[in-house]
């Protein structure tokens, strides 16, 4: 198996489609095209040479746990040391604490390049960024000075500790307690599960961001506070014990830990009982990152299945032999193999541009000012559940196509493609399942704000349609713009009469929104690419856009219908009637 960083596609989207040059100028960053190029190229070399070789072996060995001590797969620690020496963790870090102060978009691309080569390994560093953001945005100066330099340099790593055995989606139920201590710190006690990178042997210290309850705090989510709890405090153990690691379907190279906090010393981040808001600072970025993981897995799946489809000889083409001198034609000639490849390409490159768009919005939300900033924040809020939910759902479909193209060989571990399916499966679950994203999108981001953000995105679709007036996608874009708005309005209206309507329509609405968003971006890509027909890469973009509109976009219709069909068929059934034997 080989892996090559798709630098051409990345640059095309960054420079030609989304004009990051102009964007960086607007947010007054001195990131130049040359700098970005250098970073991407060097990171590609690191990922291809150091990380990719550990992908399959990391899956095979997995992590091991022995009496509270977690050991990562062979080679992981060395690669992590190289990563820290290379300065990769600090790209977007705050310069006041040793960071390079570059826009977050660049650090997302670095994540993408590394996670395409080795997702399980990359997760050890990814979670640090969430912790850094939470401390940087909400922590006191003391906390920042104590924790940020080592986190930003990568000498320490971070985690997010939310889930407990009885609470996942419903964080309001959590039981972990925080008792105030005379010195202003807190003593944290409780058990957290499913903590990615919760313990390992890559870094000197691990900084946990833990949701817990103060004494006498209100019930539910309004009584939750966020704490920083380091594994080591002044070099001594701080009562954080890894009780076990999970034996999972995939991401075997990443340690998913059960952590017991036993009177561990912790420090409040932000205000008491304001933990949910602080946590969302972490979550929102993490959600975009999970969408990126979907892109990463699709990239590798597309590369390997394309190579296989080119080399594997099986049957003749329906329109006559294409390789008459060989015993059979490469399977790439068969229409259904092409359908599986083009579906991957459409979801992969469409998903990639969606994550880059979100990264652009995130840059503006953090560095822009005034109206630009406010509207970017609103649009990012809208895009986050779509990127997380839709890109991972389509990524899972795409890697299954990659496996399917391999036939029986795809089911065999050594081929390496089934690992993509097992690794991809978690992206539909963690950082809020697809269902939670869908509720967030329809409930909070559309209905609760009267569709404002959605309308601004729909205006972008209309503007694109106007730009392309008379072109092949203009009328489809206009129809989508009308239909999406009406669908949102219709569901909003229904929801006032029946609260179940939101939940009943949510996933269909999310998928519809994903297809519509992706259609917009494919049309935009095709507009840019169609100006340069002499180039096979550009022609490919136009053809993939055509394929998307012909063969993929019709799916939006079915989601539209199902979303509007109401809640009755879901809610009529009583709980006991779900059993049937």
């Amino acid at each position, binding site marked *: 198996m080989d892996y090559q960083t798709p630098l051409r596609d990345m640059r095309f989207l960054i420079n030609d489609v989304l004009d990051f040059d102009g964007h960086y100028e607007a947010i007054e960053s001195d990131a130049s095209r040359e700098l970005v190029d250098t970073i991407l190229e060097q990171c590609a070399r690191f990922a291809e040479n150091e990380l990719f070789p550990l992908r399959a072996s990391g899956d095979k060995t997995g992590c091991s746990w022995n009496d509270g001590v977690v050991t990562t797969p062979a080679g992981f620690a060395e690669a992590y040391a190289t990563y820290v020496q290379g300065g990769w963790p600090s790209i977007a870090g705050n310069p006041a604490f040793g960071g390079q102060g570059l826009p977050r978009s660049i650090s997302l691309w670095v994540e993408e390049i590394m996670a395409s080569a080795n997702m399980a390994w990359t997760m050890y560093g990814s979670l640090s960024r969430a912790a850094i953001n939470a401390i940087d945005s909400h922590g006191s100066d003391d906390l920042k000075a104590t924790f940020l330099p080592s986190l930003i340099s990568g000498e320490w790593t971070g985690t997010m500790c939310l889930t407990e055995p009885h609470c996942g*989606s419903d964080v309001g139920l959590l039981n972990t307690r925080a008792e105030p201590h005379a010195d202003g710190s807190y003593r944290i006690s409780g058990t957290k599960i499913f903590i990615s990178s919760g313990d390992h042997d890559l870094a000197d210290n691990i900084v946990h961001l833990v949701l817990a309850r103060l004494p006498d705090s209100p019930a539910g989510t309004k009584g939750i506070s966020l704490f920083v709890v380091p594994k080591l405090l002044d070099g001594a153990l701080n009562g954080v014990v890894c009780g076990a690691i999970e034996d999972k379907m995939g991401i075997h190279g990443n340690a998913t830990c059960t952590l017991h906090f036993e009177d561990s010393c912790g420090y409040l981040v932000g205000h008491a009982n304001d933990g949910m808001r602080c946590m969302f600072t972490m979550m929102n970025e993490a959600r975009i990152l999970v969408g990126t993981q979907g892109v990463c897995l699709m990239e590798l799946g597309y590369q390997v299945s394309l190579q296989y489809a080119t080399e594997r000889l099986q049957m003749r083409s329906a329109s006559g032999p294409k390789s008459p001198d060989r015993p059979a034609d490469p399977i790439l000639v068969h229409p259904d193999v092409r359908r599986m490849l083009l579906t991957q390409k459409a979801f992969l490159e469409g998903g990639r541009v969606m994550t880059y768009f979100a990264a652009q919005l995130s840059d503006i939300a953090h560095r822009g000012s005034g109206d630009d900033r406010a509207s970017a924040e609103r649009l990012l809020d809208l895009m986050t559940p779509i990127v997380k939910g839709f890109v991972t759902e389509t990524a899972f479909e795409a890697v*299954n196509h990659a496996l399917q193209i391999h036939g029986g060989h795809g089911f065999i571990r050594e081929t390496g493609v089934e690992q993509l399916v097992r690794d991809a499966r978690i992206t539909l679950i963690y950082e809020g399942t697809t269902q939670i994203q869908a509720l967030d999108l329809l409930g909070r981001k559309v209905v609760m704000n009267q569709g404002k953000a959605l309308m601004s995105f729909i205006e972008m679709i209309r503007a694109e349609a106007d730009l392309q007036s008379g072109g092949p996608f203009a009328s489809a874009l206009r129809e989508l713009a009308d239909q999406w708005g009406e669908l949102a309005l219709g569901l909003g209206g229904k929801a006032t009469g029946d609260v179940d309507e939101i939940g009943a329509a949510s996933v269909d609405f999310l998928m519809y929104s994903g297809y519509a968003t992706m259609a917009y971006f494919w049309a935009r890509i095709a507009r840019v690419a169609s100006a340069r027909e002499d180039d096979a890469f550009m022609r490919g973009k136009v*053809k993939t856009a055509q394929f998307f509109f012909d063969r993929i976009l*019709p799916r939006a219709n079915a989601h539209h219908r*199902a979303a509007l069909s109401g809640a009755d068929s879901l*809610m009529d059934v009583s709980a006991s009637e779900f059993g049937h034997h």
Partner: protein
Amino acid sequence: MLPYMPPGNDIEFVLYDLFDAETEWAQIPAFDSFDRDTVRAIVTECGKLARDVMAPLSQSSDEEGAHWNDGVVTAPEGFKDAYAALAAGGWLGVSGNPEFGGQGLPKMLTASLEEMFWGANTNLWLYATLTVGAAICVDAHADEDTRRLYLPKFYSGEWTGAMALTEAHAGTDLGLIRTRATPRSDGHYSITGTKIFITSGEHDLVKNIVHLVLAKVPDAPAGSRGISLFLVPKYIPGDDGLLGERNGFESASIEHKMGIKGSATSVINYGDAIGYLIGEPNQGLACMFTMMNYERLSVGIQGLGLAERAYQMSSSYAKERVQGRVPEGSRVANTDADAIVGHPDVRRMLLTQRAYNEGGRAFSMYVGLQLDRAKYAPIEAVREKASGFVDLLTPVAKAFITDRGLECTLLGQQVFGGHGYIREWGVEQLVRDVRIAQIYEGANGIQALDLVLRKVLRDGGATVGELIDDIRQTEVPERYTAAMDEALNAWQEVTRWLCDSAPSDSNLPGAASVDYLDVTGHVLYAWMWARMAGVSGSTDKRYVADYYFAKLLPRYYSLVASIRGGSASLMEPSSDWF
């Protein structure tokens, strides 16, 4: 883990209420002794075996896997005894020819038994299902002596079978195989070559394993017209059935797989192994298809069995797991949260599973019914019509039920949230175990091509038309007639469009095939649901039928639109461009 719950009541509902087995079987002499009590006893006993003997070994077999040591393959702990129990109960001969010790049960019934075996323990049942297929092939194509020697051993479970088709360079395209069959002086053949992906090709559950091997005789025509079928036993039996010498093949290794880890998938090396020709030389593919067609329906039912298990686990979890507040009404007082079964989207995930599973159960048993009619109906015209339906529906049963099987096991896993990703909960195993069903016995893309090219275009859509007529004549509740009509019209029109457009576009069948199969499946399930809701006295079926018509049937709109999207967007890019 939750015990396996055999769906015996629903099976009886499908048999008697939906398909009126009583009347059906009264017309067929071979079946007229199967009264309702007998059938209930069979279904109940099968369910008990599935629940008590097979299901408890499913997770442990996944953990442990099969073992290979210097050519010797050992199945997971407990499989040997469980297989012996299957054999002792006569479960391997239920559909066998009574002339040779089989029980000759109707396929409509045995399809439902297979669902329980697959659902309780796919890993174990894989050792058995190939035996059933091998027996069907031997019964249909071998000479009298061979049948007399081998069939009783298959039916009693003393010997198992395996199918050896695939080679490293030849999977879908069997015309490319290189395994050779050289004539020996005794009239038999000497088989040499390497086969891969041989499920149950070697193991320690029984004393003898009988391979059905595709190979080429000298001077055979190139391609698929030059393939012959050979019976190659591990130990060569005497006429008395006693085992003699070890034959010349062995397992070179077993595969490490994504799932079905308890089933041993071997690479088999044949070195001058003695093979007995089955049927005529160069007719091997036709003989093999007898076996393949059985296996294809059965693999479809694998998808159903595992999806049913996913529903059992996830519906039970959804009733126990409390998380979040439900929107209104059914909140439980004095608690912090409600059971997640109250959340609309969790219901969507449960109802989708239930709709596809019970729809799939009815559909797979309907295909079984057609198989019974094709074989046993006293009137020739009935046999012929049913046989046309079997040909048409076999690829649909294989691909549609397994595609839905993956979808439903994924939804079952999703209901568990993060816990679903953890091995000990057992639900992620279902996803890994069902994934292969979309690949083996002809990948689902191949099923779709078979449907469109051979079963629809070849007769210009006549068989589909016949089936649509049948469907139109069935009485369904009024609340579904409009949607049913609309769906049938869409299916009919897109079929006609395909038949009209294919002659001028050789790539269209391949471009439309997967979507077309999906349309077919969705319309047929709608028919099953409308009929079930019509004959059922309880609200259970009506709920699910309502859900199916509101939320799942609409998928055909987009599929039809995609079919009409044509082949240009797929074929325009040159191969280099990709």
